[in-house]
C-alpha cells in the first residue's frame, strides 16, 4: 500500500473516512469533497488495483511487493492550467514507470505520487495520504 505526501505529518493530522471502495473506479479516477480546516476541497482519487492480467507500473518493486499491491492516490481535483475541476476525469498511465494522470483539458501530466507536473516544474498539485481500511477509503488531513 502506498501513502505518499509532500508534507511531514503533524499531531493535528487525522485519518477520516472519505468514501467507500465501491465508489472507486479501477484504473481511473473519481472526485470527492474533503472537509479541511481551510474549508472544503475537491480531491481526485485514483485507484490502481493489481491482480492477474491487470496493468501495473513497471520499474523496481517496493520491498515486500509480490506483484499484487494496490495503489491509491489523492491529488487536487482542480486543474491549475484551466482552473476547472476535472483532474479526476483524466487518463491514468505511467511515464517511465511512474503513475501519472493526464489532464483531460490540455493534457499536461501530473505525477500521482507527489502531484508534480511533468511539463512545468513550477506547477504541482497538492496530495493527501490515502489508504483502504476494509471497504472504507481513508484520507489524512
Amino acid at each position, binding site marked *: 500500500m502506498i501513502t505518499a505526501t509532500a508534507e511531514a505529518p503533524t499531531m493535528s493530522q487525522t485519518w477520516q473516512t472519505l*468514501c467507500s471502495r465501491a*465508489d472507486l473506479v479501477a484504473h481511473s479516477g473519481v*472526485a470527492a469533497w474533503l472537509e479541511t480546516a481551510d474549508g472544503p476541497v475537491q480531491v481526485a482519487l485514483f485507484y490502481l488495483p493489481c491482480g492477474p*492480467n491487470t496493468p501495473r507500473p513497471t520499474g523496481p518493486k517496493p520491498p515486500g511487493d509480490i506483484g499484487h499491491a494496490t495503489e491509491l492516490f489523492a491529488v487536487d481535483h*482542480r486543474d491549475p492550467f484551466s482552473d*476547472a475541476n476535472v483532474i479526476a476525469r*483524466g487518463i491514468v498511465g*505511467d511515464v517511465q514507470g511512474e503513475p501519472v494522470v*493526464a489532464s483531460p*483539458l490540455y493534457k499536461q501530466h501530473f505525477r500521482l505520487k507527489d502531484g508534480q507536473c511533468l511539463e512545468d516544474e513550477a506547477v504541482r498539485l497538492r496530495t493527501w495520504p490515502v489508504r483502504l481500511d476494509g471497504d472504507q477509503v481513508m484520507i489524512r488531513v
Partner: protein
Amino acid sequence: MNTPSPGPHLIIIGNGMVGHHLVEQLIERGGTEQYRITVFGEERHRAYDRVHLSEYFAGRDAQSLALCDADFYAANGIELRLHETVTALDRNKGEVVTAQGRYAYDRLVLATGSYPFVPPIPGNDRENCLVYRTLDDLDDIRAAAEKATTGVVVGGGLLGLEAANTLRGLDLDTAVVEFAPRLMPMQVDTEGGELLREKIEALGVQVLTGRATQHIEDGEASFHRMVFQDDKVLETDLIVFSAGIRPRDELARDAALKMGQRGGVVIDDRCLTSDPAILAIGEVALWNNSIFGLVAPGYQMAKAAADTLLGGELIFEGADMSTKLKLLGVDVGAIGDAHGNQTPGARMFRYLDQIKQEYRKLVVSSDGKKLLGAMLVGDNATYDTLMQYYSNGLELPEDPAALILPSTEGAPTLGADALPDGATICSCHNVTKGSICATIDDGATDLGAVKAKTRASTGCGGCAALLKNVVDHELEARGVEVDQSICEHFSHTRQELFDIVRVEGIKTFGELIGKHGQGSADSPGLGCDICKPAVASILASCFNEPITDAAHIPLQDTNDTFMANMQKNGTYSVVPRIAGGEITPDKLVVLGQVAQTYGLYTKITGGQRIDLFGARLEDLPDIWGTLIEAGFETGHAYGKSVRTVKSCVGSTWCRYGVQDSVGMAIQLEHRYKGLRSPHKLKFAVSGCTRECAEAQSKDVGVIATEHGWNLYVCGNGGMRPRHAELFATDLDDEQLITIIDRFLMFYVRTADRLQRTSVWRENLEGGLDYLKEVVLEDSLGIGDELEAQMQTVIDNYECEWAGALNDPEKLKRFRSFVNDARPDPDIIVTEERGQLRPA
C-alpha cells in the same frame, strides 16, 4: 548576466528584424567579448517579427511576435535602449545624439530600416489616414476601425494586400486602390494579375487598378472621399497607405555619408558606408544601386556586417528576390526573372486554368535546359521544386512543361536526394543541404535538433516541408530508424497493433499490454494517454463492444468516458444524432425544452446538428433520458468515429436535384454510425452537381449524377483543407455502399492514430491508384474480409447512451462527487445574447 566587455563601443541604431539578427550573429561569434554593445530602438517593443505582422489581430500579441525573450539582451551583456530615437550623428566627435544624451561610438551600424511611402496627395494627412508598418500602426488601425465600416488600402503590392487582409479581418468593407494597371505589378504579369484580382474580389475585397488619387476630402456618407484622376470618387471611413517603402536614411544624409540618388546609404560588399567606422544593413542600405525590401537579404547583410566587425572576409554578394507568399489566402510565388524580360532569348511555358483559378509560368533559357524564372498564382505547391531548379542551376527535365501542368501521377518531382550539397534549403538563414547533413553527422537525430542547430525554417517558415523531407531522407540514408512506436509502452505502430488484436482476437487492453507491451509479463506498465485511447479505438473497430464496459472505461478520453464533449470550464456539450440533418418539429421542440430545463447554450453545428453546451456531469443522464425518450440516439460527437452525413435537400424538394440526397445521407449515417476509427469521419451527400452539401471537403463525399452516384474520398476542411478526389463514378446504391465499406475499413486498419483520411491518403504509398486497386479491383484479395468486418461493427451497434441509462453501475460514473451531491461551485456562467456562457 554577462558584464559588458571593456572593449571598443559598438552602437547599433535600429532594433528591427535585421538589427536583431546582427546582434544574434555577434553573440554567436563572440562579438560581445570584443565589443561593448549598445542598441537603440525607436519603438516601444523589442525586435519583433514584422513578416507576420498581420497575425497580430489573428491572436498573436506583441509578446508572441517578439524575436527573443525580454532578458535576452541583458543576459548577453548588451544594453538595449528602447523608445529612444537617435536624432543625429556627430561624426567629428564620434557620437550619436538622442533626446536623452550623447553616446560615443567606436563602430556604428545603421539598421534603421524603412518607412512607408505616403504619396503626396492633398489630404493625405487627414485624420484616419494611416500606414501599416509597426505594431503601433496596427493599434492605430484597430482603434480607427472601431468607428469605421469601410476601409481603403492605397497600394496593391505585397504590403498593400497584407494591409487589406488586416482591414478585412477587422470586419471593414475593404477596397484596394492601385496606381498600376494590375495588382502586385512587381511579381506578376497581366494574366497573373487578372487572376489575382478575381480571387481577391471573390473574397469581397473591391479592387480598383489604374487609379491615381488626386485628393482626399470630406465624404458625404463616409468620413473621407477619395477623388481619382477621372473625377470618379470612392468614399471610405479609413485609409491605409501602403504604397512601397523608403529608406530611413535621414541620419546618414545629415551626416553627409555617401547616398544614392534616390535615397539609401551606399554600402560596399562588406556593408561599409563611405565612413569606414560606419556600416549599414537592411532596408536603409543601398548595395549595387538596389534596396532589398525582404528579410532574407537583410539577414545576409547582417551576417556580412558581423564578419566585417569581427575582422572576417565574408562579403554580401547580392540576394535573390524570389518570394513565396500567401496573401488574403491566395498563393503567389515569383522566382528569379519571373517576367522573362531580363535575359535575351528567354522562352516561356504558361499554364492558365480559369476554373480552378491557377496560373503558372516558367521562364527558361533559349535551349530549354535552365530555369531562369517562374511565376505562380493560386497554387504554390510547385514553388519549392522550381526554386531548387532555379537556385542550383539544375538541368530541367526533358519536358519542362510537366513541372507546371496539373499534377498527375508520374509528374517529375525533385526528391531530397537529387539536390546537390550546395542547394539552399532555407534562404532566410542561408542553410544549405550540406550544412544540414553536417549537423546530422554531428549527432542531430531529428528535425527539432536540426532546426535548433542550423536555424533552418525558423525565419519565414516557407521551407518547412522541404526541410523535413531532406532531414527524413538523410536520417534514413544513415540507417537511423525513424521510431514509429506509438508510445513508450508498445514498440508497434497503430497498424501493427490493429493486426495483433485482429489476428489474436485480443479483447482487452490488459491482455494486449501483458502480451505485447514493453514491460515484463508480471509488470507490464499502465499504458498512457496515447496508447490507451488508441487501443480502445482499435478494440471498438474490431469488436464494437460498448465503450462503457468496465474493461474499456479506463482507456477512454474523458469525452468517450462520459459520452459528451468536455468544454473549457469542465462542463460538457451534448450532440444527439440528427441523421442527414433531417429533424421533425417535435424533436426540435424537445431539444429546445431540454436546453431550457438545464440552462444549456445552443448552437447549430457545421454538420447540420444542434449542440447543447454547458451540461453539468451529473445532469448528463437526465438530459439523455429525456432525449432518448423523444427518440434521439447518441451522436458520437465525442468520439473518433463517424460524425455526420451532411446533405442538401435533394430531388424531393429541389428543382435541380437528380437523386434523393437526404434519403441516401440518412441511410449512410445509420449504416456507419458508431464506427470507431483512427480519427473522426465526416460525410456528405449532394443531390446534384451544384454540390450544396460540400461533399468534396469530406472524408467520404457522394454527389448525385443522372445515372447514380459519384464517390469522392479523402477530402478535408479544417486547418489544412484538402479537396476530395473522385474515386468512382455513376454507382448504384449497392455498389456505393460496398465501396464505402471497403474504403473505410481499409483506412481503419492501416492509418496511424489521429490520422485523418486526407493525411493517410497523402502518405499512402502508391497514392490514389493503389487505393483504387485495393478497394475497386480487390488487388489484395481482402475485399470480402473488409466487408465482413464492417458488417460485424454494424451488427454490434447499440446506442451507448441507451445502454448506460439501463445500467445503474454505469450511471454511478456520472456523479460529480462520490461522497456528496453538492454541485461544483466553480462552474460560473454569465449571460450573452440571451444565452448562458462560461463567465
